[in-house]
C-alpha cells in the first residue's frame, strides 16, 4: 500500500502521541492535553523542517 508522505507522517504522529499520552500522564484530561501537544509539536516541527529543507538542493 503506497501512502503519501503527509498522511504517513500524520498517522505516525497520531499513533506515537496516543502512546506517549497514555504512558506519560495519569488522568484522562492530562493524557488528552499532552497527546494533543505532542501531536501538534510533531507535525509542526516536521512542516518547519520540510520548509527549511525545501530550497536545499
Amino acid at each position, binding site marked *: *500500500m*503506497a*501512502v503519501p508522505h503527509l498522511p*504517513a507522517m500524520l498517522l*505516525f504522529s497520531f499513533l506515537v502521541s496516543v*502512546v506517549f499520552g*497514555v*504512558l506519560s500522564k*495519569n488522568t484522562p484530561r492530562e493524557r488528552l492535553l499532552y497527546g494533543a501537544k505532542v501531536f501538534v509539536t510533531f507535525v509542526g516541527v516536521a512542516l518547519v523542517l520540510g520548509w527549511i529543507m525545501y530550497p536545499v538542493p
Partner: protein
Amino acid sequence: MANKVVQETFSRPAQPKLTTLVRLCVAAWMVPGLGHLLLGRRWRGLILFSAIVTMFLMGLAMQGEFFSTNSGSYLQTLGYFGELCVGLAMPAARFFGYAGGNPLFVSADFGTAYLVSAGMLNTLSILDTYDIAMGRKP
C-alpha cells in the same frame, strides 16, 4: 527524621515477587498492552494494543523491511532488535507469509520506520508495566 523513614518504609506497598514481575514483562513484550491488562488497567492496555498493533500493521502494509542479524551492519542489527521488541507480531507476520519487505517499494522507508517505532513504543509499554507493578505509578 527516624519516624519519617519508618513511616515511609511501612507505607510502601508490598513488592511483587520477581517471577511475577518477569511474567508481567514477558506478557507485555509478547502482546502489546497485555501487561497492563493483567494489572487491571484494561482501557490503558486496549489503547496501547490498538496503537502499537496498528502501527505494526501499517508498517507491513507499506512493505517495511524486516532486518536481520546476519547483515554485518550494527545499525541493521539494532533495527532487528527494535523490531523484535514488538513481540509475537514479527514471527506471526513471517508465519503468515510476510517475506520481509521490499526496499524498492515507494513507501518502504516509512514502513520500516513504522515497524521499528512499534517495537520502541512497546518497549516503553513494558517499562510502564514494570513501574505499575512496582507501585511507582497509579
